[in-house]
């Protein structure tokens, strides 16, 4: 029986794909979807597991090399090791969004990913938005709309807003609220944040 049949009919394939923990690739027929043959992946040497690693992060366009323990989060690597303190540590549990950065252009919470997992990726923090003295339109809109009080959540709000606008989730106030919901503001500046995101989205030049 071909592996793909075993998968689609729900029958259990008794074929041994691994021997005593040693990695052995499965061979099988060709299936239309790569995931039908998970064990047939690109050949690669397996680097030995390690508790520290040298990691390259391209932070705001600058290559930064840093040796970190595997358990160091991207947030801690940025703040404590690279001195990039725009991303804030609010909850350290994924709940507040203060640590939001862009990885390869996508917004993520940097407290919930490990620096080693982000090796060789582009990281954009709030420090990377302005062009010299010229603020990014989202930054300008936050000032214009007075979209903060204490400012602790603001860098995360701005990074999230930049992505939210790029994703096209700014069609209405309700849509903005929903798609900005991963960023909490203890000062309760939500109405002004929504207006700022709306303004920046309308401005168009991001």
């Amino acid at each position, binding site marked *: 029986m071909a592996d793909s049949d075993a998968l689609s009919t729900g029958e*259990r*394939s008794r074929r*041994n794909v691994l021997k005593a923990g040693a990695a052995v690739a499965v061979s099988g027929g060709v299936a239309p979807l790569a*995931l039908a043959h*998970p064990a047939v*992946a690109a050949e690669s040497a397996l680097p030995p597991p390690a508790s520290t690693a040298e990691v390259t992060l391209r932070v705001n366009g600058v290559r930064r090399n840093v040796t970190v323990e*595997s358990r160091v989060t991207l947030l801690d690597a940025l703040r404590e090791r690279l001195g990039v303190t725009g991303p804030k540590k609010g909850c350290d549990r*994924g709940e507040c969004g203060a640590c939001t950065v862009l990885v390869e252009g996508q917004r993520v*919470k940097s407290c919930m990913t490990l620096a080693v997992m982000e090796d060789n990726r582009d990281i954009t923090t709030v420090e990377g938005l302005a062009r010299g003295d010229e603020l990014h339109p989202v930054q300008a809109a936050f000032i214009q709309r007075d979209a903060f009080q204490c400012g602790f959540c603001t860098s995360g709000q701005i990074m999230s807003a930049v992505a939210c606008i790029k994703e096209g989730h700014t069609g209405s106030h309700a849509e903005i609220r929903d798609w900005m919901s991963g960023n909490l503001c203890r000062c309760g500046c939500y109405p002004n944040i929504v207006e700022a995101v709306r303004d920046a989205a309308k401005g168009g030049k991001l």
Partner: protein
Amino acid sequence: MKLFDYARTSRVSDAVGLVAGHPGGAFIGGGTELTNLMKDGVLAPDLVVDVGALALADIGVRKGQLLIGATARMGDVAEHPVVRERFPVISEALLASASPQVRNRATIGGNLMQRTRCWYYRDVGSACNKREPGSGCPAIGGQNRWHAIHGGSDHCIAVHPSDLAVSLTALDATVLTLGPDGRRSIPIGDFYRLPGSTPDQETALRHGELITAVEIPESGPAAGSRYLKLRDRATFEFAVVSVAAALIQAGGVVTDVRLAFGGIATRPWRSAGAEEALRGHPLTQATIAAAGRALVDGAQPREHNAFKVELVQRALADILEDFGGRK
């Protein structure tokens, strides 16, 4: 967080071999759950194997089955046109989950394997039979507003938190795995275990067994399926109760119906009784009420969660209204 070794590989067999060969090994997908659990000391793996580089992120239909790779991101699955059009309950359940930042990173495999949000489980200072077998369940006599009214035992009443799993339960999905003993196809109904006297054993997965994909049969009910999630705030919150409904009618009667519920049970909860009350009948006030009663038949509410008995019936009535039913 305890120190651990980290490895990343693009070969599925290597990933499985590494974790299988290490009693303290664990996979990491997006890390949005495991990092929290490691910070809190709930889990303390000594080897973490990153599955992000495995070629398991495809989404597509093959032979009447939707296949979603285990490392596909929640956000990508939610916005995939085939998922939106032919399996809307999956898209709706995912979009109602967590936040955009989490959905950009979190994987389907990690989502299915997320742990309960029971505050006693998450707090290593508390007893918890799930985390520390035999230590007791403080939820049963303690703060249990979030806890289960179905599927609990004297040992555990923690709710399963995944919205995705509820939608997959309604659609009769199958979890595809690769482990040290080979491949398995596990119907989702067998994947999640009831706590019984071993609440620490949450799923059918064995140590080192990797979820590679989930498979969902195409069907008429799937194409018209819906998800309703009730929360303590409008968005970015776990379900207090939720309903996944897949249903078709012909000649004024329900011909096919699948109903699964979240927030009320120790695992995603399929209600055969509620389905039975509707199958072959028109959607009327009386049949909907009968389905609601069947759904909560045998429910075991606790001190702070008795409201769920009423709330989940109303949620069911509400979603059935979307299918043309009258409350």
